[in-house]
């Protein structure tokens, strides 16, 4: 399969009065056509900012993408003039946001919000666009789409709004959909419906997906490959199977061990990652995870560990990754 998106050494910094926040600091990954990539991390790790940087939606000032390349379909998005970038957004790459309550315009009907991009990007007439909008709503499983088209966002439930968002994202047949915490605001049974829908649509139309989430379970079920982010950097990358069966970074290991799991016997005590995530304005020298890490050695304070291969297609940014793998195997985890 061909590579659709290549992100190279992406750096997005926020210049605030208090100092420079390095929200995304040298992130590189690629995405194949039709692939689903999971971008996992805790709040403030830079996962959303890295996605917004691809779309060039970072508010400037204070934010600025200060380095790197985003090669999408052969062209560097960061070098495109604004007028051309507008043709990429919504047409070739579209986004599904976390809060379906706030990301829809409350004073426009659902129909208007769906037809807007169809008329703009695909040059459809009003009636064509309307027909297409009805088709899209039906496709994402909204009953009675003709009537629903005239309604406003407040008349939809959370799950239904997220379906509308997905219909909007799909409307121009994009090659890539970036979903930023698409189900965090939804209940589990609705979450399952929405994720199944997204996965089904991606399979059927060959759309690539980037799912940004903090929920390790969601990623395990739906992603082909996974990037784990911490303090603005990717600290581990691999197939979902690699990441979950052979976690090779202490942070990934910590995340997996700290969540109670339904499939394993109940533990007497949970094993949390101690401490707090670091302040992105004053990152410590060396590895950003060092202070919370139980495997830290002296070298971790001096150098930033580079992302290195642990096995084919599996990378970890940890000096101790080799021993971690064996330790994890010993414990059978």
């Amino acid at each position, binding site marked *: 399969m061909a590579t659709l998106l290549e992100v190279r050494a992406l750096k997005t910094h926020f210049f605030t009065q208090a100092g420079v926040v390095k929200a995304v600091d040298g992130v590189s990954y690629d995405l194949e056509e039709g692939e689903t990539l999971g971008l996992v991390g805790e709040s403030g790790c830079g996962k959303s900012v890295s996605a917004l940087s691809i779309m060039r939606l970072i508010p400037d000032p204070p934010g600025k993408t200060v380095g790197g390349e985003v090669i999408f379909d052969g062209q560097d998005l960061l070098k495109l003039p604004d007028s051309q970038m507008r043709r990429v957004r919504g047409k070739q790459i579209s986004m599904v946001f976390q809060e379906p309550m706030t990301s829809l315009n409350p004073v426009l009907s659902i129909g208007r919000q769906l037809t807007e991009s169809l008329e703009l990007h695909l040059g459809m007439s009003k009636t064509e666009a309307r027909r297409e909008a009805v088709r899209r709503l039906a496709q994402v499983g909204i009953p009675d789409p003709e009537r629903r088209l005239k309604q406003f966002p407040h008349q939809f439930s959370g799950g239904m709004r997220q379906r509308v968002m997905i219909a909007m994202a799909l409307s121009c047949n994009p090659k890539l959909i970036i979903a930023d915490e698409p189900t965090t605001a939804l209940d589990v049974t609705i979450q399952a419906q929405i994720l199944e829908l997204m996965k089904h649509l991606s399979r059927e139309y060959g759309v690539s997906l980037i799912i940004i989430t903090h929920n390790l379970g969601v990623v395990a079920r739906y992603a082909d490959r996974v990037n784990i982010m911490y303090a603005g950097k990717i600290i581990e990358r691999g197939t979902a199977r690699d990441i979950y069966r052979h976690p090779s970074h202490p942070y990934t290991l910590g995340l997996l061990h700290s969540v109670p799991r339904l499939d394993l016997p109940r533990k007497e005590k949970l094993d949390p990652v101690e401490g*707090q995530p670091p302040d992105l304005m004053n990152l410590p020298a060396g590895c950003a995870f060092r202070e919370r890490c139980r495997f830290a050695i002296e070298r971790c304070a001096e150098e930033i560990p580079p992302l290195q291969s642990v096995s084919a297609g599996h990378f970890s940014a940890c000096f101790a990754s080799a021993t971690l793998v064996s330790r994890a195997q010993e414990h059978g985890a």
Partner: protein
Amino acid sequence: MKAVERTQNKPGDNVLIEVKHLKMYFPVTSGILVQRAVGYIKAVDDVSFFVRRGETLGLVGESGCGKTTTGRCILQLYRPTAGTVLFDGKDLCSVPGRELRGIRRQMQVIFQDPYSSLDPRMTAGNIIGEPLIVHGLSRDRREYRERVAELLSLVGLNTYMADRFPHEFSGGQRQRIGVARALAVNPQFIVCDEPVSALDVSIQAQIINLLEELQEKFDLTYLFIAHDLSVVRHISDRVAVMYLGHIVEIAERNEIYANPLHPYTEALLSAVPIPDPITDAQRERILLTGEVPSPLNPPRGCVFHPRCWMATKECQEVIPELREVQTGHWVACLHVPGYGSPESVP
């Protein structure tokens, strides 16, 4: 209903909280000068359960199912429409407001959102110390300060943090302040209303461990309200599942997760994704169609029947009551083996 009364009043049971036929209806009004109720939102509709001393009862369900309302009714933050809430044998629903304040020393609450549940203009020390002043629990300034310092270190915060304001703390630390505030008055019972769902994964485990340590130390009783089924399994001794204002199943923790009887519990459990792609792929998944109906106009009969794959015509007519089908395992579904025939509905 007979069956419900039987086990709930089982002699020798060390019951701290007993809720019987609790109903909380919120009126929906219309009219400008004269407001008339045009309908009722049945947030909690005939719910009965008990919590034993020192145990954690997990209350799970999706948003809008009435789990938070149930918690607030127990604390009398809402005065229930009908039913009784017995706290240590005393019916709280008939206690007048002024007397309630004294009783509230025994029952506290930890809220979901550590950002909006702390007053941004108060220091952490004042937030934690306020209950001491309200209930007159410290004799002088020194004792007050010592108690605040003690509470701070109890929840794993440094005593010098007492002078800081909420915005200077991270989400996990704020939740610790919320826990310290609840503990200030030495309560017996704490309603934990989604205490970890707003926190990051690596921080959630810290708070859960803290809650468990404190429970052991002070012999606390928890009602743990959450929508995350894996967290609830970890912390609870028994689990109650709510759907649209009704409790559909209650059982011991291991029993309900290993042997869910109600179709809704089954679907809910199968919807939880597991952080392991291989195990997850092997699980059977039940994808519920549709969404939770509006509590303003709940379906007739069993409230779950429009989304249930086992529903029959009978389900549309009969409201199944909660019955004990195995020892300690209660379920409200006509199609569970051993449930028996439904009572005729008036």
